[in-house]
């Protein structure tokens, strides 16, 4: 029988391009005269470069130039004081092992690779420390406040509670590792015109950074980034290696392409910082929470500071009168971290949601019941009502789907031969953002609509969501709508991050479409046409090939009146082998409570992807450093374990799908982060329920099960 592919309105607009290879990623652009850059990296961890011998490399076949701190191509911002201490090629200081110290440009990639191996550096070496946990424990080590301390009610109230839990949780460094390697093509043309093909979560941000470093007008810079092969946060900034590539292009007057190696992905484009956290919980015997204390230490670098929202969730997620938090960052001699999906909240949620489970166990309460009992009526941190929150319903839906009634409160109760079964639950929450964005809409007499905005799509399906919003407002079939993005010349939009794109850009799409609709209605009225007339006919009747509207859209004072969050509940069933310590996730049910679901297929994919990332965080992912050398030891895809298909069971996704009345015209809240936040705790909680073993250090590998 012939197989038919049934298209529907909710399909990804770029799906066919992605699966047929037509989607063009930055590294695939062929520019006339394109050259290839390969980085030379430091082999020491801390110190100074004393000499850099580039002669052999310069003489090697095909080599055009070796750019380093010795020949400093012009970058005016780096000549000024201030900013990051790591000004690429404007310093001879080494801040971490694997730091880029030169870029070799040649006429083929292979030649550049070989020539890069010929560059010889000598150094003076300083003592260093790459061991974050050691720095945390070292009273002499530098520590910085990451966020102002927070206190509500009595500090450390948990200590005097009827029932108390106090535990420490550890997370290793995780590396984003999207399939697409990071890099850039930079083409510095005459008259200081710069064209780049970038892998970026924000074309405008990349444009701004380049303008700022080189002090050239922003209009001179064109950034293209139509497709991005996964970002997860690592493409939220323009990295020094990208600036290095622009410098190289400027110096040689030719386009230069840089693509990192998988190994360089571990040292040049950030990571989820390691963390050590202590949670103290206090409760009455009836299960009422009386105190929450969350203290966190996060990793940062010595040359730039990085902080994130590790302790945010403790402040409002549970009804509790006494809450205090503290967040400290501790510099180590490694590359600077960056947000990784679910950012700090995912780190914090592992600790908090594990501790909540520990408290439920200490109270001999069902952890779901315990959560429901302490579900907050309003946001106590900001003293405001939630704009919309349906957690209890989400708990109910998820519990039923996972088969929570099969769960026994006593750990180790469900046994099948050597396998022990257990169930776990956790909650995820992330600020439901809405920023400011502009969209241009061009309605054409041929019946089509073009929408333009300088946003990005790092994978979630931005074009699809925007198309569906427009389609619903204007009643045009999705197939007739084109959403253009990834181009810095389009109307302003913020970087794609913090689960805000659908809310921010989607609102502007909505507003543009509403405006177009009323323009068409006016035209129809003026030309004595029926108000329900087809817009194409209205345009034709008026002899207009097209009409254009640009709208800027942003949040109003509703954000002062309400506290806006997206929520997710993760349910996990695991089995744990009692002899080998292997953990297998048997079933996943994730429930999203994030307002209206605009694009059901891509929304589901977000939740599925988050669950897969969550399994990785919980069970397999860890970037390992040999602290004697300061070098990563598992910096490749064979040894850094992202989950494979065989690790992932059936994933059921459910949405509450009720509009948030206040957030934006669609009533839709972001969900990229909540898909992952909290997930790892659900796994750890399920492992505890299966075995009675509480693993507080991720990832939960078989050796840890056997050792505890």
């Amino acid at each position: 029988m012939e197989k038919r592919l049934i298209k529907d309105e909710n399909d990804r607009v770029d799906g066919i391009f992605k699966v047929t290879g037509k989607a063009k990623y930055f590294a695939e652009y062929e520019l006339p005269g394109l050259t290839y850059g390969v980085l030379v990296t430091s082999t020491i961890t801390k110190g100074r470069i004393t000499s850099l011998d580039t002669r052999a490399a310069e003489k090697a076949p095909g080599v055009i130039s070796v750019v380093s701190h010795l020949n400093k191509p012009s970058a005016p911002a780096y000549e000024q004081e201030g900013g990051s201490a790591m000004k690429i090629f404007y310093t001879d200081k080494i801040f971490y092992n694997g730091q880029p110290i030169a870029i070799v440009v040649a006429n083929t990639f292979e030649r550049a690779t070989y020539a890069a191996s010929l560059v010889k550096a000598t150094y003076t070496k300083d003592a260093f420390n790459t061991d974050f946990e050691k720095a945390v424990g070292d009273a002499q080590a530098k520590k910085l406040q990451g966020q102002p301390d927070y206190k509500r009610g009595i500090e450390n109230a948990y200590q005097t509670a009827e029932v108390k839990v106090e535990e420490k949780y550890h997370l290793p460094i995780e590396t984003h590792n999207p399939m697409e390697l990071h890099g850039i093509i930079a083409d510095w043309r005459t008259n200081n015109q710069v064209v780049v093909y970038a892998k970026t979560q924000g074309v405008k941000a990349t444009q701004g950074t380049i303008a700022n470093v080189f002090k050239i007008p922003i209009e001179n810079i064109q950034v293209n980034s139509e497709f991005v092969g996964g970002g997860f946060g690592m493409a939220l900034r323009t990295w020094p290696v990208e600036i290095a590539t622009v410098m190289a292009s400027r110096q040689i007057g030719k386009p230069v392409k840089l693509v990192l190696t998988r190994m360089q992905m571990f040292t040049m484009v950030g990571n989820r910082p390691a963390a050590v956290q202590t949670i103290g919980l206090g409760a009455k015997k009836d299960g009422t929470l009386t105190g929450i204390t969350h203290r966190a230490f996060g990793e940062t670098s010595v040359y730039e500071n990085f902080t994130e929202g590790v302790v945010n969730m403790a402040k409002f997620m549970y009804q509790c009168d006494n809450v205090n938090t503290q967040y400290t960052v501790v510099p180590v001699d490694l590359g600077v971290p960056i947000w990784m999906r679910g950012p700090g909240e995912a780190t914090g949620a592992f600790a908090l949601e594990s501790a909540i489970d520990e408290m439920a166990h200490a109270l001999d309460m069902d952890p779901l019941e315990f959560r429901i009992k302490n579900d907050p009526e309003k946001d106590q941190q900001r003293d405001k009502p939630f704009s919309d929150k349906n957690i209890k319903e989400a708990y109910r839906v998820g519990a039923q789907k996972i088969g929570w009634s099969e769960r026994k409160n006593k750990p180790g109760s469900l046994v099948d031969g050597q396998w022990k079964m257990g169930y776990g639950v956790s909650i995820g929450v992330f600020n439901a953002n809405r920023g400011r964005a502009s969209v241009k809409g061009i309605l054409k007499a041929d019946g089509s609509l073009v929408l333009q905005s300088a946003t990005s799509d790092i994978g979630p399906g931005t074009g699809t969501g925007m198309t569906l919003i427009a389609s619903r407002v204007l009643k045009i079939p999705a197939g007739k709508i084109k959403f253009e993005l990834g181009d810095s010349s389009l109307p302003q939009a913020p970087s794609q991050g913090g689960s805000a794109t659908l809310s921010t850009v989607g609102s502007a799409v909505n507003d543009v479409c509403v405006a177009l609709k009323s323009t068409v209605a006016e035209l129809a009225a003026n030309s004595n046409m029926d108000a329900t007339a087809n817009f194409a006919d209205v345009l034709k009747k008026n002899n207009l090939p097209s009409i254009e509207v640009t709208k800027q859209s942003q949040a109003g004072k509703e954000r002062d009146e309400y506290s806006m969050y997206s929520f997710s509940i993760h349910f996990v069933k695991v089995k744990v082998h009692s002899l080998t310590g292997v953990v297998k996730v048997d079933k996943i049910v994730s429930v999203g409570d994030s307002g209206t679901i605009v694009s059901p297929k891509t929304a589901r994919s977000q939740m599925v992807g988050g669950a897969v990332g969550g399994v990785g965080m919980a069970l397999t992912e860890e970037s390992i450093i040999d602290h004697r050398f300061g070098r990563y030891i598992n910096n490749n895809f064979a040894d850094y374990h992202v989950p494979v298909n065989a690790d992932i069971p059936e994933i059921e996704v459910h949405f509450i799908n009720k509009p948030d009345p206040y957030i934006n015209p669609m009533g839709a809240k972001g969900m990229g982060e909540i898909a992952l936040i909290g997930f790892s705790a659900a796994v750890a909680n399920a492992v505890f329920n299966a075995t009675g073993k509480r693993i507080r250090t991720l990832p939960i590998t078989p050796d840890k099960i056997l050792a505890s």
Partner: protein
Amino acid sequence: MINFQYLRTTTSKSALNLISKDKNSKFLAGGTNLIDLMKRGVTSPEKLIDINHVPLKQIEAVGDQIIIGALASNTAVAEHALIKEKLPLLAMALNAGASAQLRNVATVGGNMMQRTRCGYFYDTEMPCNKRQPGSGCGAIGGFNRMHAIFGTSDQCIAVHPSDMCIALVALDATVVLSNAKGERKVLFKDFHRLPGDTPQLDNNLKADEMIVRLEIPNNNLNKNSYYLKVRDRASYAFALVSVGAALELSDNKIKDVRLAMGGVAHKPWRLTAAENFLKGKEASAENFEQAAKLAMTDAKGFGENNFKLQMAPNSIIEALTVAKSKA
């Protein structure tokens, strides 16, 4: 550029002539290990002799043996009806290795010759006696979670990463090697080496030799075989510990037994003492436990891999139990 010559041959004879002429040449089979090592700068042969077109891909029963050509792909062997029926342990071990894509091109000879996955061996900025004799062993006192607990030396504690080889050592295979002058046979258990003072040598293949085939004697172990691989993720990860277990049972009596372990030594680790203990005894939980305990005599951890001291005996028990329970 580091240039190398690429030569393609279609007969063993010409392959062997080529290799005898030039010390710094290497055979290229599936290339799944060799090319990676070349990219990382761990090895840089001047000549690559592509042997993929040499007709050594046979998988057949000859007399009371099963013969497998050195260039048969891992997939071809694992999916061959004869192997699935007569040597299921080998099929299971192969399928536990790498990924489907890798198995499709990886060959039997290449699999035997694959080098350790020790991270220090791969990073040319790190000390490693195997890569650069005399430079020190990075793993001792470093990251050694994946490393050996048996047969180590103070020069090297690496493991041989193959799954296939665990089955082959258990099944009493013989390796047939050839040079330009003729063939010789080596017992599989003697093919790989312990590190001793020469960690740079993984095995006893001579510079002018090629692996041509394996000979595996028929056995009655096929009903009760099991390959257990304990790893950090369900596929596409090297073994923390693996166990190949095969039993010949008569009622519940053990007539014959084979046990070998992976992820624990510089070579596929046959558990002879445990086998000897089990032979003639009841296939009981107590005896399995006793055998596992015996197998662990002389085991030694290096810190991060201490968990293997528990995971290994547990895995032996589990593998024997599952093998026994097969219909």
